[in-house]
């Protein structure tokens, strides 16, 4: 696979910065991105497609008279196009309004080397090998039961690299790999169709278990075929990582972003040092977590990733900052400037949002639930109120727990509550940690959540 070399990307970033300064910018930052992905896709129970996507680009931020302009292009091998994009960024800045709070781009930094984020085997994977893995996963899913139908999924490997340079001395390059295999299944019997049941493995190195993924997805769908209703009441929930990832992304994570706090959009404003959750809950944002799906040497502004304690035994410790929000408070950035490749300006985001594991195994959590629901997937989490933390969602599906045992599946169960109450009502934290997108978390047991049954 032909990829852009470190020197080529850094040169492009640094040259772009110096050209922008020559053209009149008072400050400049260039972000160069390359992504190469190969995917083998499964549709309607068979391997049906093979995709290869190469995406490269350059995003430039310039400051002129304290006003910010940004421009990007995906044509980076043509000096005229690069010059054009610098001019566009500058004219955007000149059309914009000065920001009195602007205190400059972040300065010179040194980086730690992140662990287990690049695997030569993933970068060099041939599509033939990916086809084999996809076939293995499909076969594993198909062998579980005839009533299970794998509807979509696949396996994809990607190489990603980025370089960032700015006029305050930042200059960084990092590269990484990701591999992910996933499968979504439904089970069908007569006119009964289950909700979509999904499993996956994602890793920075070539460590995926397609047999496990296929079997688990199929088993989940199968167990959702027969359903009974549940009653409307407040009850105990075991939230798996799927449910937590969805729910937290649209609620808690907004509340710990420093810009939300500064703009009076966070219920956590003024609560640093106060108890905001059960003392069983400890959360840190860890941009250097070994092998983390969001582990990189630096963030979207070239600020080093770090580990930031957010909630410690229920006490709120810190918010997540990019350099703009940090400088506003005279603080240091926590390395949380996220970036959607070269297409956007940085904005605050989590790295690996890590809920620290407790000591209860999955079985112990189940057996310590006298009456409750096990919630895997949520429907509608993005409709939560991002400011108040209120949610009203559907569990698709949920499994009823009675006296420590799963008794039956139930579909269309609604859950409603407020994330800040949920955090206070956490009663158990599992030891079964797992990575899912930005979240690294075990299962969590929470009490007294409103459930609306049919």
């Amino acid at each position, binding site marked *: 696979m032909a990829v852009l070399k470190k020197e080529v990307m850094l040169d492009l970033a640094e040259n772009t910065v110096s050209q922008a300064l020559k053209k009149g910018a008072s400050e400049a930052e260039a972000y160069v991105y390359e992504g190469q992905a190969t995917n083998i896709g499964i549709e309607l129970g068979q391997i049906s497609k093979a995709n290869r996507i190469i995406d490269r680009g350059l995003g430039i931020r310039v400051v002129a008279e304290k006003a910010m302009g940004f421009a990007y292009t995906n*044509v980076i091998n043509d000096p005229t196009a690069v010059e054009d994009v610098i001019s566009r960024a500058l004219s955007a800045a000149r059309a914009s309004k000065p920001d009195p709070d602007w205190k400059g781009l972040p300065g010179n930094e040194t980086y730690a080397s992140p662990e287990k984020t690049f695997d030569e085997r993933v970068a060099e994977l041939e599509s033939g090998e990916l086809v084999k893995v996809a076939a293995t996963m499909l076969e594993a899913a198909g062998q579980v039961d005839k009533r299970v139908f794998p509807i979509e999924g696949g396996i994809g490997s990607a190489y990603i690299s980025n370089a960032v340079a700015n006029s305050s001395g930042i200059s960084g390059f990092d590269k990484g790999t990701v591999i992910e295999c996933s499968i979504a299944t439904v089970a069908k019997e007569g006119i009964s169709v289950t909700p979509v049941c999904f499993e996956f493995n994602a890793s920075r190195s070539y460590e995926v278990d397609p047999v496990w993924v296929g079997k688990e997805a199929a088993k989940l769908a199968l167990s959702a075929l027969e359903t009974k209703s549940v009653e409307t009441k407040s009850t105990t929930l075991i939230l798996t990582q799927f449910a937590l990832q969805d729910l937290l992304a649209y609620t808690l994570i907004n509340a710990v972003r420093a810009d939300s706090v500064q703009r009076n959009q966070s219920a956590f404003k003024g609560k640093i040092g106060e108890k905001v959750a059960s003392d069983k809950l400890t959360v840190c944002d860890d941009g250097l977590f070994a092998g983390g799906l969001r582990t990189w040497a630096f963030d979207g502004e070239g600020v080093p990733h770090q580990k930031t304690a957010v909630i410690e035994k229920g006490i709120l410790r810190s918010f997540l900052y990019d350099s703009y929000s940090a400088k506003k408070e005279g603080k240091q950035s926590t390395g949380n400037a996220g970036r959607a490749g070269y297409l956007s300006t940085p904005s605050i985001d989590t790295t690996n949002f890590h809920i620290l594991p407790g000591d209860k195994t999955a079985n112990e959590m189940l057996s310590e639930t006298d009456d409750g629901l096990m919630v895997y997937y949520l429907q509608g989490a993005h409709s939560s109120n991002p400011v108040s933390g209120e949610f009203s969602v559907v569990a698709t599906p949920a499994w009823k727990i009675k006296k420590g045992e799963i008794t039956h599946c139930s579909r269309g169960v609604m859950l409603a509550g407020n994330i800040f109450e949920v955090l206070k009502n956490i009663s158990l934290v599992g030891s079964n940690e797992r990575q899912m997108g930005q979240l690294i978390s075990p299962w969590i047991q929470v009490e007294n959540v409103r459930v609306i049954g049919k």
Partner: protein
Amino acid sequence: MKDLLTKINRIATQKFGAQYAEARAQKMVKTMLTLKEERVEAAKQGIESGVALRVLVNGTWGFASVGSLDQTILEGAVSDACKMAKMASSHLKKPIKLSDTKVVTDRVRSKPKKNPADISMEDKIKTAMTVNKTGLGYDKRIKSFTIDYLDLMGTSYFANSDGSSIEQDKLYVWARIAGSALNEGIFTFSREELGSTAGYEVFDEVSPEDLGEKVAKRAIEQLGAKSLKGGTFPVVLGPNVVGVFVHEAFGHLAEADLALSGGVLADNLGKKIGSDLVTFYDDGTIVGSFGAFKYDDEGVQTQKTLLIKDGVVAGLMHNRETAQKFNAQPTGNARAEDFRVEPIIRMRCTYMEPRDHSFEELVENVKQGFYFKSFRGGQANLDGTFQVGIQEGYEIVNGEIGAPVRDASISGNTLETLNKVNGVGKDFLLDPGRCGKGQTAFICDGGPHISIKEIMVGGSA
């Protein structure tokens, strides 16, 4: 461009024996703004161009995307796509085939009254700033106001091995406005979207002042709203919620790829599943609407597609692959977000046909229930479970609209719920939106006010 794309398609068919090949080149310019309160976070411009190549080899799809229009790079990419498809076909059970479609040669120009390219960045900032200033000035309790603005202009060049060749302009103007309020520890949040394929004249139809005020007013009203007690209730839904209901509860299930994936509609074609009052369309022909275009990304002309008529399932939304499987005609629903991704079945403008009730008649039949006026998010599932979040709702007590309720959602099963529609209004409204299905599509949905005999309502009280 046509010659280049045709040459690349020929490599696929002649050198690699592809049964079908298509090339879609795009050149796009984007202007984006984010204003937070009275601060312009950044004024942004983007330029992108690239080509999506899709081939069918041995009944398996191969796809390659590159950010380049260079012939040598495209030749390499199409070879890659063909080789990978061949490799992937080794486990194929049912080869993919495509339905026949008309061969088209056309050039489609957009004709905006106000071309976004002719409006200066300064003017766009001024408009956005007016929205935020109006919102912030509406009430002291409004604490934050954000507007994201986007205009996207460009040209898509399409050529396939059947001989079609289409050059089509793209034009989208979009804005999202969000405001939050805080009073005595109560937080509220309100949002609106604006979208058009006509031009910048969309801001003449709704003034920036009205937009700011609408968002702010809702955030303030919600401060006094109470959480509701969940359960099963009769409801009246406003056009904004009906649109999302149609989109989530029925639209996704009527996407033929999802119907084939086990969705509940595949076995119900031609069957009556809903009340006589239920008629839905997915329509790509409404000029200027956010889901409108002339040709889809397989070169098929868009149309007004009847999905359900008087409660009877009438049709599905197809691409060329699913149309072949159902022995139907492609409906022009194959859309790709950009050249980085392949076309998949997406909705356009999905709506319910109005009937003859007045709003008052719908409300007066409800003894104890809710009026849900405006949505925030929604999601569908293949088993027919839908969810729609509500950002603005009111109690209905004895046929009268009462106190506001906050942060609720509605859910149910499509097949059960469509039978419970017992009143359909004579009014009609469409709202622009965005739909996520791995890729983002700009869409539109709406309808009249309707009443539903009973539906599950989620609330935490």
